[in-house]
């Protein structure tokens, strides 16, 4: 009980301190980047594409960076500020300091990234769509002896073609309905040509069911997990941010994005497993044929990693001598 009480009191104090710090402001700005982009996005044609792209940004960039910036204060800041003595000469278990301070940074970073994820979801759902009308797929056809032959098939608003004199000309096609035909002047070879509307493609302005919850879970868990990694480094190094950045963006960046089984060694892979639905074409375009874990399995593995790391860090803090310079 005494350990839990000390841990929670330290966590409460550290949370109060953290949200008034310059680090918090920096992290808030980092978390706002993907959310801000989604909120400011204009001319969007597909909500899912926007949300998928920004989710990747949140998981690969914002969550690690927020986790690293906040996690580095856990022990290193106390050693650097030479205030660790005040805690380590009190009748409390030394690991209560680590646990309390980690809980504070994990909570704050999780809330920041949960807010960021919610912003992405809101922004993607409420983006200024280029056109809410369905898109028209049209074909530019020329007449041959065997009939009309399709030269081009597109979904753009305007069709470009060449007239008999070889000049480029534009025809607006966005108003057309399936089956509509526009007869054009003959092409440079003197053959008749036309534009034919083939089909109507509805615009995807809705996100998949459950996407919002999964993104918030993955982003907040990711940030908390990266705080734990940096907090662990902060026990041993005075500048844990540098090592943390190298790990998150060089080591993880390589492991998580190389094809093959090495992906399972990265935190990113497990976070993606929580979110990615390979049945969804928007995700399939990003990850091609990659395979992911079931969300429950990914969550379980992350929990086991976290418990092992927390245990190791607590053990190290309880035994390590922190040599303070006067």
């Amino acid at each position, binding site marked *: 009980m005494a350990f839990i009480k*000390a841990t929670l009191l330290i966590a409460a104090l550290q949370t109060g301190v953290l949200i008034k710090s310059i680090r918090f402001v920096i992290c808030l700005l980092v978390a706002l980047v993907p959310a801000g982009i989604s909120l400011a996005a204009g001319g969007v044609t597909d909500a899912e594409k926007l949300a998928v792209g920004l989710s990747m940004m949140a998981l690969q960039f914002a969550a690690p960076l927020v986790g690293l910036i906040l996690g580095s204060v856990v022990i290193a800041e106390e050693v650097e500020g030479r205030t660790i*003595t*005040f805690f*380590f000469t*009190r009748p409390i*278990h030394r690991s209560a300091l680590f646990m309390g301070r980690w809980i504070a940074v994990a909570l704050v970073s999780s809330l920041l990234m949960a807010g960021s994820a919610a912003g992405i979801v809101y922004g993607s759902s409420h983006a200024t769509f280029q056109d809410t009308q369905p898109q028209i797929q049209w074909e530019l056809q020329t007449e041959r002896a065997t009939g009309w032959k399709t030269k081009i098939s597109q979904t753009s608003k305007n069709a470009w073609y060449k007239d008999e004199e070889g000049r480029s000309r534009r025809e607006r096609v966005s108003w057309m309905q399936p089956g509509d035909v526009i007869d054009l002047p003959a092409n440079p070879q003197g053959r008749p040509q036309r534009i034919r509307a083939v089909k109507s493609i509805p615009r995807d302005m809705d996100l998949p069911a459950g996407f919002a919850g999964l993104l918030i879970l993955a982003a907040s868990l990711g940030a908390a997990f990266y705080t734990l990694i940096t907090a662990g480094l902060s026990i041993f190094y005075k500048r844990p941010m540098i090592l943390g950045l190298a790990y998150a963006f060089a080591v993880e960046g390589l492991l998580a994005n190389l094809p093959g089984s090495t992906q399972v060694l990265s935190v990113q892979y497990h976070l993606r497993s929580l979110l990615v639905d390979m049945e969804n074409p928007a995700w399939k375009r990003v990850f091609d044929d990659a395979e992911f874990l079931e969300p429950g399995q990914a969550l379980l593995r992350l929990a086991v990693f976290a418990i092992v790391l927390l245990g190791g860090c607590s053990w190290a803090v309880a035994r390590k*001598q922190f*040599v*303070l310079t006067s």
Partner: protein
Amino acid sequence: MSEILTDKPAETSEPTSCVIEARELGRWYGEVVGLSDLSVIIQPGITGLVGPNGSGKSTFMKLIVGELKPSRGGVRVMGHKPFANRTLYRELGFCPQQDALYDHLSAYAFLTHLLRITGKSARDSKLLAGKALERVGLTEAMHRKCGNYSKGMRQRVRIAQAIAHEPKLIIFDEPLSGLDPIARHQIRTIFNELASAGCSLLVSSHVLHELQGLTNRIVLIHRGRLLAQGGISDIRRLLSKHPRRISIASDAPVDLAVELLRLPGMRATRIAEDNRTLTVETQNAEQLFDELPAIATRLQAGITSLDSDDEDLEAVFDYLVG
């Protein structure tokens, strides 16, 4: 002066009654020796730990409070091995040398928080924090943020956190260093009150005279080893045979220099370019320290700091070592 120049603990003392017992204690940082083969027994009451900067005083204190582990030998504090010993920390207070505080917190919030995490109720924590801050004379300023405190006030906050939980043994690492004479007097008064209340104190200083009037028991260490242990008068007599250089920051350094030159044993005075710092060299430092408060008051010289040159003290210790 039977204990002077001995590196073994006094055999006459009762091991069971001592508060600190170090046996062949050694601690090094890589290849740098912080403390080497120190054996000493410290009895209840106030004990002064004296040595020049780098002599191993802070290392010894960090070993006593369990901030560090010994590289060799051992230390027992009130019968306990100190490293991460929660039982001991209920009875031990530590005032570190470094000027480190949580600048965004008020002294009251800082102390209350430290007391609460050790298991005290919110009500008791507030009471004890208020009592400790009152004892160090910070009641009026206790709700101001520590970042806005003067050096003397910050030192008093560190002392308050060391005494707030009413420990039986308190370790003070250079508590008087860099303070003005008034603050020194206030803190010495607090130490005497604590001792009267039955508390044992170990107070370190690199200036022997700072401990004068506080205790008659001195442990002298140099280059990580016990150099001498005994009465303050015996050690003072040894040190006074050597010239000392003392820096005094004052509003009226010229007037002060003229007056001080009249004292016996004065060899030279020099006023620094800042027109505030007066450096005097004397063969009778004790008389200078005795006379200085009265002279400064008469001249209204406004002394803001008083420091003994470490290099000179080092020379004195070298002289003692032979």
